[in-house]
């Protein structure tokens, strides 16, 4: 579903969130009945420290146009330091992706606490808006579909 009836590009975004802060925050967005865009689908992890960087690349390869990563604010990690380790991992990862020309502007990093239901809605809407403006991540999808590029298959 890349385009709806109005020909507006509807990006597909996967959100990788920790269970204790952002997942709970997104629950609060729900209990507060704050509306946001439908483009983001949430995957729950125990902690941001658990989020494997390869899963981000897999999301892009699978056709995601954008990614949200969110967890507990510094010092609030349910496991004390998972978010600190994750933060370091992302620092190195971002630099590397950027150097290789992978579009890090399509990855939104955020801290959303269990109390920040409204912030979650903002993060989602903001990211959807930004990715919509950027358009589909065609070049990455194309690279991922290397085998399918060959027109050598008949039924």
């Amino acid at each position, binding site marked *: 579903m890349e385009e709806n009836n109005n020909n507006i590009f509807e990006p597909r975004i996967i959100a990788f969130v920790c269970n204790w802060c952002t997942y709970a925050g997104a629950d609060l967005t729900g209990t507060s009945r704050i509306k946001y865009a439908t483009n983001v689908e949430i995957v729950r992890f125990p902690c941001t420290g658990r989020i494997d*960087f*390869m899963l981000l*690349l*897999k999301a892009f*390869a699978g056709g995601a146009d954008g990614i949200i990563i969110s967890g507990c604010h*510094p*010092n609030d990690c349910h496991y004390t*330091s998972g978010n*600190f*380790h994750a*933060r*370091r*991992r*992302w*620092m*190195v*990862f*971002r*630099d*590397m*992706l*950027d*150097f*290789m*020309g*992978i*579009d890090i502007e399509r990855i*939104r*990093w*955020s*801290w959303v606490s269990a109390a920040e239901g409204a912030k979650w809605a903002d*993060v989602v809407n903001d990211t959807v808006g930004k990715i919509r403006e950027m358009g589909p991540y065609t*070049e*990455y999808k194309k*690279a*991922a579909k*290397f*085998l399918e590029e060959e027109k050598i298959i008949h039924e």
Partner: protein
Amino acid sequence: MSKLSEKAATLLSEGTVKMIIGYEQGTERPRPAFCHKPEDCERLIFNDQCSNNLAVYLTKKEIIGEDKVGVVGNYYVIKTVIQLNRENQINLQNLVVMTVDGDDIITFGSIDEMQQYVDTHEPVPNEKVLAVIEKIDKMSRSERWDYWKSELSKCVRCYACRAACPLCYCNRCVTEVNCPQWIEPWAAPLSNMEWQINRVMHMSGRCVGCGECAAACPLELPIGILTKKMGMDIKNTFGGWKDGSVLSTYNVNDKENFIK
């Protein structure tokens, strides 16, 4: 017989070590040599051309066995030994680490001595590598993507980069994990890139910068640029790192301007 050969032969004949790993003259440039008997040691040489990172053999059980071995390595071998020791991969008791400095053969008595040597003998950075990094840095993002996609599309996944790296000692590499299949095992532009991204992430803060990954690549792909750039970024971001891995430690005050 050179001083080096003599020293090595003595270590073997006295029974201090059962094997000496060093360099010998190969087809066009020096290559790794394994001396088991004093007379083998005549082949040993040491010069600026001796670039193989011999530490790669120190984690291979089938090569070093249970016995004490000596290694006559270059700067990067020493640096790698320090890192391997941090990572519990070698038994220093069973290792005699040596290098050649001018006419002298230095035998290291401890990790501290090796560290001191490493701190005071840093080789000049490879200007060519730096120039390529600068060139890539100046590109636009899509140019960078095109550059790497085109370069890494040539990769045939022979894993010479992995095999030549002394710190790629895993019994099972992430590329060999198939539940789930993190990286598709066949050569294809994206899986080739993913392999290199994994390699770099796994090396972050650990890479000693010997450049053997790039030297091993039969296709001359610029993969050494990636590890070098990662090293530079880490130095910029974290101001260097002492204890081995930047990714297994953290600082509460790490910059997080990208997290909004």
